[in-house]
């Protein structure tokens, strides 16, 4: 096999995907790869990171009610949906039932639309994740999609990630900036 062919082989790489949520990153357990005490000077790290968004990043274990637990109560679902009513709900024809005309009042129509919008809305639930000592800051408030019930009528669709963003943090290896993906929008969709 020629050198050129070998080169081709070394260019062969798997293809990443933007699908979320992420799976757990398996780290080498050897503590030799951990940063030492002197690599953790907060002043230096803050200046290396630049923008520190404390809504999403934390150096110490956050003490608020989101900490690690999955016990999200109804309060978390009070999030009002942002933006305009989804087109498919806005355009529903409430005047037809079993193929027959049955005029719906403006008020009834509005109530139906608001209820359907509320029922099918997929809030982003944020929870603090511990990424381990090789990331700084090691706590990230990552988004996930509510999945305890179906979001469609009839049942069948579930809330799935629709948009994401990156937050920058540092990775030990003489501390390099890392783009960490975070779910920012969920959508009621069929699983595939």
């Amino acid at each position, binding site marked *: 096999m020629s050198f050129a062919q070998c080169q081709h082989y*070394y260019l062969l*790489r*798997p*293809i*990443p*995907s*933007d*699908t*979320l949520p*992420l*799976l*757990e*990153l*398996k*780290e*080498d357990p050897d503590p030799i790869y951990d940063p030492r005490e002197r690599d953790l000077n907060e002043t230096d790290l803050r200046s290396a990171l630049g923008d520190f968004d404390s809504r999403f990043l934390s150096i110490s274990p956050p003490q608020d009610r989101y900490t690690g637990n999955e016990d999200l109560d109804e309060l978390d679902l009070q999030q009002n949906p942002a933006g305009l009513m989804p087109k498919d709900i806005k355009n529903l024809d409430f005047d037809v039932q079993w193929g027959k005309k049955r005029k719906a009042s403006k008020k009834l129509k509005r109530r139906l639309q608001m209820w359907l919008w509320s029922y099918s809305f997929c809030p982003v639930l944020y929870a603090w994740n511990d990424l381990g000592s*090789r990331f700084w800051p090691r706590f990230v408030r990552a988004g996930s999609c509510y999945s305890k019930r179906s979001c469609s009528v009839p049942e069948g669709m579930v809330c799935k990630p629709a948009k994401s963003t990156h937050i920058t943090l540092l*990775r030990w*290896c003489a501390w*390099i*900036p*890392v*783009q*960490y*993906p975070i779910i920012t929008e969920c959508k009621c969709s069929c699983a595939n």
Partner: protein
Amino acid sequence: QVDLKTAEATDGASVDPKQGCKKHELYVSFRDLGWQDWIIAPEGYAAYYCEGECVFPLNSYMNATNHAIVQTLVHFINPETVPKPCCAPTQLHGISVLYFDDSSNVILKKYRNMVVRACGCH
């Protein structure tokens, strides 16, 4: 070196051909692949692989497609026409990888279909 836990079961390039199609252990070290330059973590992963004959009657037919059943029979009647179906993954899983992209940014992303979960004749 690439660590193959079933090494004792192999003779030359392949597993005993009389064994039916099934999943085998394979740990892939990214360093061995020359990928330590762009993959930061993990250092490697259990990838597994599929190998074995697609011969009837064997358990490998548990995951065979209808097309593989037809192809097996065409091959049996006239081996010159088509090859036997091959032993390949039927289910795959993803892993998360922390890596440098082409612009040297460090990214954490999912790599889909990296780990064999089940094998079958295709």
